[in-house]
Each structure stands twice: as structure tokens, then as C-alpha cells.
């Protein structure tokens, strides 16, 4: 165990405006399973991208050693050559090709002038047996479940020379039986001397599999400990244990009656048939800021886009707006009822980047600037100027294309667009993602002002300090349902994390 398979020393990686990795040190022994833990955005994926050559040598500072030898990867190919394989959360299989073709896509077997398919299928069968899949190697990958595809992806990396196998959240999409198969495979690989880096939010799996655990937080290495000295609680504490350094302009407010009630709410994804939301329930009151916390894949975005009518899937359950049942088939139903939804990806779902500020701000409320069914351009300019001034938008003029604005100002345009509609319920999905600190603070103040005016506000956020700093109440989601909730006074990062990772359920049970 004395030899290191991998050492990363003093790794620093900066993106414009953000230091994603700050002097990170990460050492993995030969033949062990080493878990890498941290909150969303702690830097795990960035670190693995540095290791695999996605971020090439020269774009980061620090040194990487494989088997004691210094390496400088400029491409993914170079890292593969020394035996590093990485399996991402998003699968990289070609759905229209067969299992066998996918398994050997970058293998010599597929690179001959004439491919010997009989040999290909025979080889594939061996690997399929190893991962416990009894399927025809000629099956198209697209026809398999996501869990099976994940196993194929693992087999694919094993067909190449693999000394270090990196798995990024491999079990997020797996069923329980598939998870067991995966665990067995990993244990077997370990006995064969393959080193494995395992990134996971599921601490139960980490406790079962790992030999060592390294925790990252805010782009820094917090600790590396042998599993014997750890418990789930200790890992959680290390993951979140930071002080609230940002300022949140919270002021206690008068909170009114229920404005939005959601009961027995389930959503079935129309493409995969998977139940992405399972019997969720919560309520939101007038003038309240409700924080929604949970890990990636917990179903937060799915729940709220579905309520807003923007999610393709069958839904069951009731939604009451001001006590009246609300039937939403498409976004315009929700908008007309007074619900606004600021999406997590403003460039993709929030803005038409080529249009100007004025046109973007009025897009969801065009009837507010129309006279006799026609757009009144002067009225439009006036309304747009009013609302953007309130948002403290900084721009040369309102005819500037939104593409040219900074992230913070783009977000203010999205907020303007929805606030122009005078919503009763404002859903904010990751409202400050990728925004600098100054603009964040202004957005928080705007949110508070709206709550003061009686708008019911939902903040979905992966940043725990933001949820804790802004919310009157925090709802925690886990695996497609509401796992519990805390009042502002009782909520702590540790309690929320424990509930989100599927740990002890000591929070008071859900309302209704």
C-alpha cells in the first residue's frame, strides 16, 4: 500500500472570475478504492478533468504523478495511454451503434481495415458476462436502460488498458440491483489491482466501498482519511463545515396565508418512463421565502418546471393556488395564473440572446405593452426602462442585445421579465449561479423586496449558505420527493446535508 498510483500536488485551476481549484493535493494508493466527496461545485469534476487531460497541461498549475512519474497530459488520449479511464455522469455511448461496436470503439479490433465481426462479438460476450449482462452484443445501446448503459460504459473502459478507473456519480441513474452488480464489479477490480477513484454523494456506498476518503470544499482539499476513522456524519461535517462568509440581507417579514399548496404530486418522465417526482408535498405562504435544498438529481428542478408546465411528463396530484385548484398544461396557463419561473440555465431557457433587453423584458408580458392588439413600442420602452431601473441593470441602452451583457446583468433581465408580470408566486432556480458577489447581493435585495410586497418566493439552490441565509423555511428534497423541512431557526448545513444524502430523518415530517 505504500506506493502511490496517483499524486496530484498543488493543483490550481482558474476560470474567468472563479478559482475552481485552489492548491489541491490528492494522493491515491495503488489498488485501493478512493472516494472523493464534496458539495455540488466543490471542484470534484474539475479535478478529474485536469487529471484526464480535458483541461490540458498548461491551463492549470501544479504537478501530476502517475506511478511516481511526472505526467503532462495535453489531450484525453494521452491520459488514456497511461491507463487512466474516466466515466462521466453523462454517458458517452453512441446510441445508434451496437453494444459490441461501443465496447470496442477506440480499440484496435475496430480499427482494422476490415472489421472481423465474429471476433468482435465473441470478445464482447466475454465482457458482458463479466459485468453480469445477458444480452446480445448486436443490440443497439439506445435500447438498453440507463443503468445497463452505465455498466456497458464501465466494461468499455475495461477493454482498454486501465490502471486507474474514475467513476463520476456512477449510481445516480442505477436501480438498486444494478448498484449491487456495480459494487461487486468494483470489488473484483480492486482484487485484480485496479485503482479506483469513486465520486459519489451517496455516503452509504462510500462507507461500504472506499479505503480512503478525500473531501473537497470550495476548491480546496479539506482532508484525506482512512475509512476506519470516518462516519457518514463526520464526512458531512467536513463537506459543509464552513462559515457563512457572504452577507444575506435577511429581515423578518409578515408572512401571510398559504398561496401555493402542492399535494401528492408525482411526475413520470415521458421519455424514460421513470418516476422523477414521487408523491411530493409542500406549501408556500404569502410573503414567504422558501428554500429548496437537495443534491443534484433530487428532482428539485423537475418538480418546479412541472408545476410551471414546462416539463414533458405525466403528472398526478393537486396544486392549489390561493385555495383554488390550478390546472397547468402549458407555461402560459401558469403565467396567466400568476406563477413565474426563473430557470437555472438563463442562456438556454431564460433569454433570447440575440434580442435586445427591451424585447426580452416584455416577452412574457407582451399584453402589458399592447394597445388595440398592437405592440406600442414607446410604451414597451417605458415599461422596460421602469423595471430595469428597479433592478439596477447596467447596460448602454435598452436596445443592447442581451448577449453582450454580463451574467449578473443577464440574470437581472430575466428577473425583470418575470416581475413585469406582477407574479403571485416567483420560483427562482439557482438565481445566483455564475454571478459575481456584488450582483448577487443586489439580487438578494430584490428578492427580499418582492417578499415584502407579498410575493411567495421559492429559491431552489445548491448553495447551502444561500438557502440558509435567505429562506424563512427550508424544504429538503431527496430522490424525487420531499424528505423533510426545517424552520429558519432550526436549519443547519449539517442537518440539511444529512437529510439530502438520505441519512437520518430527524427533521419533522412533511406538512399535509
Amino acid at each position, binding site marked *: 500500500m505504500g506506493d502511490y498510483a496517483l499524486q496530484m500536488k498543488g493543483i490550481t485551476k482558474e476560470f474567468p472570475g472563479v478559482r475552481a481549484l485552489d492548491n489541491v493535493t490528492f494522493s491515491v494508493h495503488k489498488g485501493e478504492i478512493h472516494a472523493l466527496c464534496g458539495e455540488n461545485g466543490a471542484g470534484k469534476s474539475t479535478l478529474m478533468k485536469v487529471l484526464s487531460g480535458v483541461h490540458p497541461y498548461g491551463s492549470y498549475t501544479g504537478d501530476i504523478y502517475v506511478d511516481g512519474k511526472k505526467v503532462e497530459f495535453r489531450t484525453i488520449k494521452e491520459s488514456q495511454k497511461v491507463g487512466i479511464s474516466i466515466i462521466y455522469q453523462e454517458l458517452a455511448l453512441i446510441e445508434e451503434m451496437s453494444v459490441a461496436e461501443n465496447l470496442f470503439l477506440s480499440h484496435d479490433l475496430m480499427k482494422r481495415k476490415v472489421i472481423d465481426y465474429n471476433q468482435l462479438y465473441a470478445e464482447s460476450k466475454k465482457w458482458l458476462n463479466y459485468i453480469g449482462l445477458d444480452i446480445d452484443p448486436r443490440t443497439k445501446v439506445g435500447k438498453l436502460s440507463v443503468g445497463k448503459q452505465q455498466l456497458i460504459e464501465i466494461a468499455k473502459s475495461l477493454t482498454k488498458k486501465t490502471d486507474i478507473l474514475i467513476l463520476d456519480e456512477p449510481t445516480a441513474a442505477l436501480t438498486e440491483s444494478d448498484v449491487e452488480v456495480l459494487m461487486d464489479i468494483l470489488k473484483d477490480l480492486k482484487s485484480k489491482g485496479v485503482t479506483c477513484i469513486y465520486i459519489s454523494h451517496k455516503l452509504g456506498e462510500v462507507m461500504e466501498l472506499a479505503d480512503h476518503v478525500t473531501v473537497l470544499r470550495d476548491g480546496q482539499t479539506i482532508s484525506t482519511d482512512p475509512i476506519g476513522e470516518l462516519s457518514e456524519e463526520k464526512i458531512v461535517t467536513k463537506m459543509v463545515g464552513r462559515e457563512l462568509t457572504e452577507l444575506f440581507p435577511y429581515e423578518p417579514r409578515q408572512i401571510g396565508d398559504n398561496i401555493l399548496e402542492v399535494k401528492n404530486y408525482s411526475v413520470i418522465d415521458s421519455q424514460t418512463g421513470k418516476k422523477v417526482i414521487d408523491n411530493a408535498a409542500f406549501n408556500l405562504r404569502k410573503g414567504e421565502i422558501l428554500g429548496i435544498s437537495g443534491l443534484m438529481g433530487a428532482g428539485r428542478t423537475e418538480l418546479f418546471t412541472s408545476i410551471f408546465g*414546462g416539463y414533458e411528463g405525466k403528472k398526478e396530484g393537486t396544486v392549489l393556488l390561493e385555495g383554488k385548484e390550478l390546472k397547468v398544461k402549458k407555461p402560459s396557463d401558469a403565467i396567466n395564473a400568476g406563477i413565474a419561473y426563473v430557470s437555472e440555465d438563463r442562456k438556454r*431557457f431564460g433569454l433570447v440572446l440575440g434580442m435586445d433587453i427591451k424585447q426580452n423584458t416584455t*416577452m412574457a408580458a407582451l399584453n402589458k405593452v399592447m394597445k388595440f392588439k398592437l405592440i406600442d413600442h414607446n410604451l414597451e420602452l417605458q415599461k422596460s*426602462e421602469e423595471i430595469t*431601473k428597479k433592478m439596477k441593470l*447596467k447596460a448602454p441602452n435598452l436596445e443592447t442585445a442581451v448577449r453582450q451583457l454580463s451574467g449578473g446583468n443577464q440574470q437581472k433581465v430575466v428577473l425583470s421579465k418575470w416581475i413585469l408580470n406582477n407574479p403571485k408566486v416567483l420560483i427562482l432556480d439557482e438565481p445566483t449561479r455564475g454571478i459575481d458577489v456584488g450582483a448577487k447581493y443586489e439580487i438578494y435585495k430584490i428578492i427580499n423586496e418582492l417578499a415584502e410586497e407579498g410575493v411567495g418566493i421559492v429559491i431552489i439552490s445548491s448553495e447551502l449558505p444561500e438557502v440558509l441565509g435567505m429562506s424563512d423555511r427550508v424544504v429538503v428534497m431527496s430522490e424525487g420527493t420531499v424528505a423533510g423541512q426545517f424552520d429558519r431557526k432550526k436549519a443547519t448545513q449539517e442537518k440539511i446535508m444529512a437529510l439530502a444524502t438520505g441519512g437520518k430523518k430527524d427533521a419533522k415530517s412533511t406538512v399535509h
Partner: protein
Amino acid sequence: MQSQQSTSLNENVQEKKLSFKFDMQAYTLAIALVLIAIIFSIFTDGEFLSSRNLSNLFNQMSVIAVLAIGMTLIIVAGHIDLSVGSLVGLTGGIAAILQVWYGWDTLSVFLVTIIVGALLGLWQGWWVAYRGVPAFIVTLGGMLIFRGILVGISQGQTVAPLEGGFKQLGNSYLPYSIGYILAIIGIVLLIFFTIKNRSKRANLGLALTPGFIDYGKIAVYSIFTMGIVYMLNRYLGIPTPMLIVVGLAALFIFISSKTAFGRSVYAIGGNEEAAALSGINIKRNVLWVFILMGALAAVASLILTSRLNAATVGAGEMYELDAIAACVIGGTSLMGGKGKIVGALIGALIMASIDNGMSMMNIETFWQFIVKGLILILAVWLDISSKKRAA
């Protein structure tokens, strides 16, 4: 901190008063058009800019111009229509058959033809919007289907001749006095709306563009309009097809800038997902774009059939490509979300000028194809490289 930021916005708005908004693309187009005119004038001893030739030029461009108006909306919405050529052929064939074989009067023929065009557009729009089949495929299918139906119903024959009223549509000219009166009415309306708009903006406390720019623009437009009308009146007067193009262009510019439908089309082409989440009904708007395209193709077919005094099996072939080229030369992005009807009209005029000028110079037809193809590539390359430099 707060007051500082709000004033910074105010200052910037005030700055706008002084800055003159340059629309580079519009200027590039205008310059290109002027260059083409100068070159052809030199090679034809000024004959290219003669009253007679200008009149011909506007007649020649009218069919493609009407198609380009509809095509702009289609492309801005992020789609394409390859069937317009066949659509022109089929609706023209139907119009001629109704009149020549069945003896319908001209007005009924016009009405029914335009309705048929709209219905054929509805058919294609339904496949694109509600069945999710890519517009490229649906309209490629339409291109074959419509041409096939035309050959079937006309039994491969040329249908002719038309009645007097029908023939008038594409072959008549406005009396000189009416031409001047229309031009003056246009200029008066322009002055009226500019003044009204300025006073309204002042009332709302919005920034005003300096008066000399607004009134300067009016002066330029007026001189230009009167000049064209004067030139055309020296020959036979304003051609009726040109009046139709101007009327339709005005209508569709109005629709694209003043109605919720027009705004939605631009939003859908710019970012369909964001538009949908803003409550815009994607399917219905796309359907309407195709219906309008169908109706416009029918209008174009009436002009074409009237000009030829006959409907032929091959009428309108390749017109879809000319219409798309006109839009693209006029600055419409095939990615959707960006494009202007005025640009498409200038594009159509550029294409027609090249055809016309080269014919006058007795250059063989095959060169016209080659030159038009090269200009298309050049126009898009210029657009892309200017954008890269800006970024």
C-alpha cells in the same frame, strides 16, 4: 451605491440621444446595390438605369420579392420552405384552369387561389408544428407533391389564354397622376407618424433621436420615392406588380414589428425553449407562418401567371432557391431569430439586377447562374467575417 447605478443607466440613455444608430448591414446592402447599378450602367452605356429597364426590373423581381417576404418569416422562425416554387406552379395552374377551362371570373379565381395557397401552407405547417417533422423534409415532400398534382390536373398541357382582367394584374401600369398621388400620400403619412411618434415619446419622457436625423431620413426617403416614381412615369408608370410588392411589404413589416405574432416568430427562432417557457404558443405560431407563406405563394403565382398569360407545368421551378437566396443576401440568418423583410427585398432586387444586367450585356445564361451562386456565398461570408471581427 444604488443611486450611482441608477444614474449610470440614465446617463447612458441620454448618450443615446447623441449617438446615431448605424445599421451596418443595411448600409452594406445599399452600397452593394449601388455598385451593381453603376457597373451595369457603365457596361450598358446607361441603358441599365433607363426608365424602360427600371420598369422591367421591378416587374421581373416582383414574383421572387413576394415569395421572399414570406420566406423571411419562415427562416426567422427557424424553418425553411423548399416547396414555394412548386406551390407557385400549382396555385398558378389552378387559377388558370378555373378561368380557362371552367370560365370563372377573375375575382373568384383570385380569391379561391389565395385560399388554396393558404390551405396548402396549413397542410405543411401542420406536419412541421404539430407532427414535429423537420420543415426541410415536409417541404421537400411538398415540392414533389405539388409539382406532381400540377402535372396531373393540367394533364401536362399549357393552360392559356387568360381573360383581360387577369392579364391586367401583371401587365398593367398605374396612370401617372395616381402614381404621384400615392407617392405623396406615402410621404405625408411618413411625416405624420414621425411627428406623432416624437410627441408621444416626449410625453412618456423617453429619449428622442435628434430632429435632424428623423427629418433628414424623411427627406432622403421622399427624394428617393419621388425619383423612382418620376423615372417610372417617364415610361409607362408604376407597374401594378410593384404596387402589390410594396403593399405586401408594408403589411408584413407592420405584422412583424407591431403584432404579438410577429414578435413571437422572432423569439421562437431566437430561442425556442426560452420562448416556450415565456408562454408563447410555438405550434400555433409556426402553423400561421406556413399558412401566410402559402397565401403569399398564391399571390406570387397570380402575378406570374398573369405576366406569362399562361400556366405551364414548369412554372416556378427553382423559385424557392431564389427566394431563400434573396433572404440570405438580405441578412436573414438560417439559424433563425434574425432577419428583415426590407433586407429580403433588397436581396431580391440584387438578384434580379444581376439577371437583368447580364442579359442586357448579352452574357450567356449559364454565367448568370454561376455569378448568382458566387454572390450568395460571398454575401454570407461577408456577414460571418464582419461578425467575427465585431466579436
